[in-house]
């Protein structure tokens, strides 16, 4: 087990869990139900999101074996049948509106066993979830070729005109009935919306009018494959051509292993509405040239060109040295659609070399360090505020709409708050425009602590601002609250004076700060003042209104101060 874990670590896979079917059932349903379940050890492996070739057991094992140099990477062959003998998929122009692209191929004389069959179905599901973006971009259909006869037609028809027996059903339904039938199906209902409201639904027929599938929803029962199927017709339809080609390549390369002639795939011809034809699968082998110095330089190693070629070959990128030893030619197989730049090749070379074998060095870059002035001011103030006897709090930046509006006696539209479109709970509806609710909620959660409670926070609030490039900006605010049996206005006022003293802002009107009595919806009437400095209003202080105190589930008087510190940076 440890050996395998090590191997996964080196290769870049995560061995998530070592379990067994029995364990899984045990955890989910209890020990009783698990009796009789399989004890065979199961490995749960996490595969990186861009490696579609490692999504099934076949691909994973192949990749690891090449990595360990146990086998050579197989060469995937495309067999083009003689003129007129191959399968053809004809696309009609109706599909353009709903699902324009399609590719197809055939796996000839394949031998399935139960495991291989399960793996085949499983890979399709994984690809659907992953690169196909839950069938929106591409949908895969696999059919028993012996039950149907080509040429096949991919067209789109009105829902009432499509009628067939869906997979594992016992009777025929029209397409509209199928939509209703699967509306409650836990698996398929998520895909219905992809075509539901379109005037025409995509459908694939064979030459006798047998329905192969209605992508992306479901295949026909007639063509379903089983363990005994010998010839498979694969079709991928979708809205993204590049991905459809990749998906087809992956499926055929992975499972052609089990064909009578291993790793050979029979090509099919796709005929477009304009008459053009194209042979699929593409199974393109691409050649790229990379200089060995580039790899060595980027990774920080110094390997000979031939050893680099050997490393890349271990990663399924067959390479050899060309020229007079100063270049490496790499053949990128169709299974590695993730190689789109030389840096991808560099990464693979580094992985084969072993990340932990690379020598760690420090860059010789000389730079002069700087702290952001706003943060520097924040740090300095925090220390002194703590010295003044206040405790720092760190609160959430997201809160409910009531927190910044109703509970403070204001209307939400006056707050210029940034609103979230998809909150999971009501607690995260808006971004805070004031630090006060956060502090009050903190006090509410700490009612049992000895009085007085003196809290402060210096942190960002978010407001809408049409002058910024995104439409909103952060403001660095400082907020302090004093919670005790008596409101302590003088204490909060004293704190303001102390902060101004630290900021070297004198208490006069011309070049310093001043406070003027005002009214505030969150404050007790007659006990509220606005603070002016540097020619602008920077905040308010005062005794909080009893309504506010009650709404935050507090019982004692409370005074608060909140200012923006940005003018003082």
């Amino acid at each position, binding site marked *: 087990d440890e050996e395998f874990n090590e191997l996964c670590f080196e290769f870049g896979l995560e061995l998530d869990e070592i379990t067994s079917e029995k364990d899984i059932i045990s955890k989910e349903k209890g020990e009783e139900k698990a009796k009789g379940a399989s004890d065979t050890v199961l490995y749960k492996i996490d595969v990186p999101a861009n490696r579609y070739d490692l999504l099934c057991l076949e691909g994973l094992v192949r990749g690891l074996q090449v990595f360990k140099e146990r086998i050579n990477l197989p060469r995937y062959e495309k067999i083009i049948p003689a003129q007129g003998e191959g399968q053809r998929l004809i696309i009609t122009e109706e599909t353009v509106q709903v699902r324009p692209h399609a590719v197809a191929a055939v796996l000839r004389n394949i031998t399935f066993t139960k495991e291989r069959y399960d793996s085949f179905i499983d890979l399709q599901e994984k690809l659907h979830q992953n690169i196909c973006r839950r069938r929106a971009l591409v949908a895969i259909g696999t059919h028993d070729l012996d039950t149907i006869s080509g040429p096949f037609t991919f067209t789109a028809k009105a829902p009432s005109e499509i009628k067939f027996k869906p997979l594992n059903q016992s009777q025929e339904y029209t397409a509209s009935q199928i939509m209703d039938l699967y509306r409650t199906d836990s698996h398929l209902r998520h895909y219905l919306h992809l075509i539901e409201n379109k005037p025409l639904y995509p459908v694939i027929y064979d030459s006798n009018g047998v329905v192969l599938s209605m992508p992306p929803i479901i295949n026909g029962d007639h063509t379903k494959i089983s363990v005994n199927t010998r010839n498979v017709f694969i079709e991928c339809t979708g809205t993204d051509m590049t991905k459809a080609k990749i998906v087809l390549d992956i499926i055929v390369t992975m499972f052609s292993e089990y064909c009578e002639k291993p790793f050979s795939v029979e090509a099919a011809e796709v005929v477009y509405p304009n008459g053009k034809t194209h042979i699929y699968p593409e199974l393109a082998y691409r050649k790229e040239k990379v200089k060995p110095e580039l790899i060595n330089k980027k990774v920080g190693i110094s390997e000979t060109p031939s050893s680099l070629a050997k490393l890349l070959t271990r990663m399924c990128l067959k390479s050899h040295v060309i020229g007079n030893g100063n270049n490496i030619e790499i053949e990128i197989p169709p299974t590695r659609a993730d190689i789109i730049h030389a840096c991808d090749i560099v990464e693979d070379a580094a992985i084969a070399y072993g990340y932990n074998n690379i020598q760690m060095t420090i*860059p010789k870059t000389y730079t002069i360090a700087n702290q952001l002035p706003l943060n520097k001011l924040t740090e300095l103030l925090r220390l002194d505020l703590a010295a003044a006897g206040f405790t720092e709090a760190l609160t959430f930046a997201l809160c409910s709409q009531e927190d910044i509006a109703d509970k403070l006696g204001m209307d939400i539209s006056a707050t210029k708050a940034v*609103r*979230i479109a*998809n*909150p999971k709970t009501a607690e995260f509806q808006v971004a805070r425009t004031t630090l006060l609710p956060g502090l009050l909620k903190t006090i509410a959660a700490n009612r049992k602590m000895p009085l007085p409670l003196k809290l402060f926070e210096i942190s960002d609030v978010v407001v809408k601002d049409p002058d910024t490039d995104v439409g909103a*900006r952060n403001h660095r605010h400082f907020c302090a609250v004093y919670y005790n049996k008596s409101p302590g206005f003088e204490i909060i006022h004293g704190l303001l004076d102390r902060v101004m003293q630290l900021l070297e802002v004198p208490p006069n009107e011309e070049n310093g700060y001043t406070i003027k009595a005002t009214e505030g919806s969150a404050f007790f009437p007659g006990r509220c003042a606005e603070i002016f400095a540097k020619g602008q209003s920077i905040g308010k202080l005062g005794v909080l209104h009893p309504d506010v105190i009650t709404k935050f589930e507090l019982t004692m008087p409370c005074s608060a101060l909140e200012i923006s510190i940005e003018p003082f940076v």
Partner: protein
Amino acid sequence: FTEMPTDNFVESSFWNFDALFQPQQHPARDQHDTFFLQDPAEAPELPAGYTAKVKKVHSQGGYGSQGYKYEWRLEEARRNLLRTHTTSASARVLYQLARQEKFSPVKYFSIDRVFRNESLDATHLAEFHQVEGVVADRGLTLGHLMGTLRQFFTKLGTGGTGGGDARGLGTPQGPPHPPLSPGITQLRFKPAYNPYTEPSMEVFSYHKGLKKWVEVGNSGVFRP
């Protein structure tokens, strides 16, 4: 390391995803991992010339890359969100660096809040802080990245809580981690995948208390 300005929680998809080569059909952009904004819903301003370049690299490729070969949509890039990583700030800063007359090597860092649309539980919050580090210079290697990370973690693990990520030319991502024993020196690197870095590495450290290797960070070399 100089501190980067990160005082914008609201970010456009452009800076948070597109400029970082994260494809528009990537699962992370889905509703469930990102907080999208209702108001303001779209970023009014995006850098025109740069946006065109980003569009080209996604759809056709460029700078040696084949690209993703899909249809890149401007409306998708305009969608506002609460940033999911501070790498968006790094992207902005690197953009400014690129527009300088003469290139000068830089080292940047930031420590600030990020937002992920997840259900809260014992190990996951919807808002948390990330430590981010970027180094840009000529001739940097993967070995340099590993060395810088090792220095960083050695200084970090002196009895404090671990959980920083460092990325040479990349960004760290660190959800809160259990406190690590003093002096994190046992580090191992594992190949990983990020849309914007290649090579990418996850950094693991041995936690004596849990008696196993835990992931303490993510890193990588930015794609050309």
